[in-house]
């Protein structure tokens, strides 16, 4: 199993622990990854909102690089995964757009062929690597830990190009959490609710309300932590949690873990190499419980 790894901008900065944990987990499982040579930003929701063609041309360069390496892309960031998969789908479905993109790519000596797939590590680990094989490598089962699997939006919607799970009641994270021995919180109506994403900068009140609802729901369901696969969700749920507490007079203490951090703990990797000290709302209790 060998992939071109696409970290994206966040995983090299505000989501550095997601990068650390995902690499460590891939290594422990024997999934071979090599960082894409000179990758560029996927364009995210910004290029999407500013320039239609640029929002295809930017990811098209990355897709063309992967085409050259003849390997599927592995993109842990939900936004990178979404926008790379979107470009891949649109370029395959729309011949005129492909022609335009290739005219642009020709100016830098590249060509989009559409030979590779964009994959999410959650999909690869649960479906390709197979959970039965994951279970064989678990040395510290997370027994007694109540996990709220939170999928957010961009990794599973729309189903036209985010194809690996059900967009309304996804199961991949649930299955992974159960496989590592945790108790999975059944909160179907919440696990795909939007956290507000970039509204954090645009209209803070909107983001605060959306994120508050998710955090409160997780607590009401008795979760010990929320597990996610998106740097934007993580930023809102973790970094903004104390602000939400202050604003709504709450006393939430809900650690937010990336899925690879949760899996890493069960695989016996050290909290340090999983970047668990980078989380604002301390997961100390969870880490201590695993250690015993």
């Amino acid at each position: 199993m060998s992939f071109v790894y696409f970290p994206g901008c966040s995983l090299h900065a505000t989501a550095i622990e997601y990068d650390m944990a995902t690499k460590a987990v891939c290594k422990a499982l024997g999934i071979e990854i090599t960082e894409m040579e000179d990758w560029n930003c996927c364009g995210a929701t910004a290029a999407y909102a500013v320039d239609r063609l640029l929002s295809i041309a930017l990811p098209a360069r990355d897709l063309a690089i992967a085409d050259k390496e003849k390997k599927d892309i592995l993109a842990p960031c939900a936004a990178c995964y979404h926008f790379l998969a979107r470009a891949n789908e649109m370029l395959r479905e729309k011949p005129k757009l492909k022609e335009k993109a290739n005219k642009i790519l020709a100016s830098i000596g590249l060509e989009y062929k559409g030979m590779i797939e964009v994959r999410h590590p959650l999909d690869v680990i649960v479906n390709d690597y197979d959970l039965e094989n994951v279970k064989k490598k678990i040395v510290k089962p997370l027994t007694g830990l109540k996990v709220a699997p939170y999928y957010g939006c961009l990794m599973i919607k729309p189903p036209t190009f985010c194809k690996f799970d059900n967009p309304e009641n996804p199961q991949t994270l649930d299955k992974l959490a159960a496989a590592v021995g945790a108790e999975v919180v059944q909160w179907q109506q919440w696990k795909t609710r939007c956290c507000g994403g970039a509204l954090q900068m645009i209209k803070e009140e909107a983001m605060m309300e959306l994120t508050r609802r998710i955090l409160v729901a997780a607590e009401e369901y008795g979760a010990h932590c929320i597990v996610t696969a998106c740097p934007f969700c993580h930023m809102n749920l973790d970094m903004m949690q104390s602000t939400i507490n202050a604003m709504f007079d709450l006393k939430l203490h809900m650690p937010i873990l990336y899925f690879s951090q949760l899996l890493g703990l069960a695989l016996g990797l050290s909290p340090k190499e999983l970047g668990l000290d980078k989380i604002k709302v301390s997961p100390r209790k969870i880490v201590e419980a695993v250690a015993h």
Partner: protein
Amino acid sequence: MITGRTIKREQFDPSFSKFVEEAAGTDIYACYQCGMCSGGCPVSFMMDYTPRQIMRMAQLGMKDDVLSSTTIWLCASCNTCFTRCPREIDLPEVMATLKSRAIKEGFPSKIMEGQILYKTMVENMKKYGRVHETEVFVSFASKAGINKLVKQLPMGLTLFRKGKLKLSPEKVKSVEQLKTLIQSVKQVEEEEERENKEVQEG
């Protein structure tokens, strides 16, 4: 605020509907106003027009009302509407198209932060090929007002303490190649605009 009774024919601009349809690449006329999009939208409670209303206004070509709406900036591109739309209309692409047109025209809005944020991020991408979050954050706050800076500062400090903010930007190795790519995008867009104009002038 538009209600059913106040819509006037003068507000309709068919060329705008055509633009939205083509740029978004989805059939906006397929919408039969069922309201599934508004029902599932997590942010509709804060919008001046619901997504369903925006769709109807887009069909009618009510350019000024659509581009000045808060709706387009509050859309978080969560894709719930598109996932549930019985007519399979890609509403997030419609919203993004409307955002891009508003940005291009510098259309005044009650929520200017959206335009400022997305423009700042794209400028940053064009400069480095990757987003330097620290610079985007500072640049956005300086343009959006001192309030934003004050509000965001505690989080910025926490991120910095946790070693999650980079002071210097990470760039692609081939900055020149990136410039050429962006230049080519511009060229193709200009060619298209010329062709569209010629067709219109017949």
